């Protein structure tokens, strides 16, 4: 997984945004506001990373236990789905 170079990640105050640029801006794609977790995930996938590697990083970042894992995996899947649906991921 990797973020397309037609999106730009920017922090504004306490918020984080993915701005469409280039062809995406021309095509009226919308910017995406991220929460802290979304920002963490996005910074990890600015460069190529596999799903499993990303999940490991999330577990480490949030000190997740075995019990937390199903919820963590579900939330990650939803977020990745949203990124794919918006064609933010390569």
């Amino acid at each position: 997984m990797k973020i397309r170079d037609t999106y730009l990640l920017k922090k504004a105050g306490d918020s984080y945004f993915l701005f469409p640029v280039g062809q995406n801006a021309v095509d009226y794609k919308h910017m995406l506001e991220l929460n802290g977790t979304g920002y963490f995930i996005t910074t990890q996938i600015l460069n190529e990373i596999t799903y499993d590697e990303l999940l490991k990083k999330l577990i480490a970042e949030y000190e997740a236990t075995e019990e937390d894992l199903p919820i963590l995996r579900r939330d990650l899947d939803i977020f990745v789905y949203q990124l794919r649906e918006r064609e933010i991921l390569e």
Partner: protein
Amino acid sequence: MEIDYFKIADLVLLLRDGKDYLQDAMWDFVCTENNEPDISVTVIQGGWEKDYPEEPLINDRLLWIYETKEEYIVRYRTCANIECYVNRKFTGESMIYLKQKSETSKKPEDLERNEMMRTIRDIFFFHMLKMGRIAVHSASFIYRDRVWLFSALSGTGKSTHVSLWHENGYPVEDFNGDLAICYVKEGMAIAASAPWCGTSEVYCNKKRKLGGILFLEQAEENSATGISVSTCMVRLAARCLTPNWNRELMTLNLNVAEEIAPLIVSGVLKCNTAPDAAVEAKGFIDGHCSIGA
């Protein structure tokens, strides 16, 4: 070779061989300055003979934009007189290539003048962005010696709202009907008008301290609410007419917006088309001015 100089938003624009295609508004910005220009544009008659790169950076319904190591090439799909223009990346130079050599006896038509003005505008915006300036899509006026921008998508009612201030008899002076060039100079946010104003025909050759910006949203009831600096920055960047063709240019837009946002009053004006909308907006602006903004 004919050379003319224009001064817009504190930047000197040099134009070579394009004066016949200019609209009257441009001549209100003519200057005698002949020092090193910030931006130079050369109009070349029928001189484009190169092949375009294979893959465009942007494929729009009106144009293609190609990027090479040294330049951006903007090629129009349908344009009566202009084949393309080239922006040099690392200097303030651009070239406009016309489709065919004009006959000296034939005067440019309105359509050709429109195309040339739009092209010079886009070139100016490209280079001025690298010089810390953004163009904000907005209708604006001068009030209390500051410029106030009303920004929204086309058709929301920017001009309608500005006209309500006139109808209410408020002491405002028209600034620009379509855009304002905004930048920071000596720690102050500045707004400059420009010869480009869409179809509004409202412009002037003035600059003032930028008081603030209200983002308009249509609503049944009128209300004005302040927004945070970060929200202002994001909304300002989203309303920029300056190019965001790639990450580098988008970053420049965001950086200038980030610099301006903390220096100005900003809010959302939910409004209808009744005179009360201007009462609400004026109350919001007066409230912020009186507390020293």
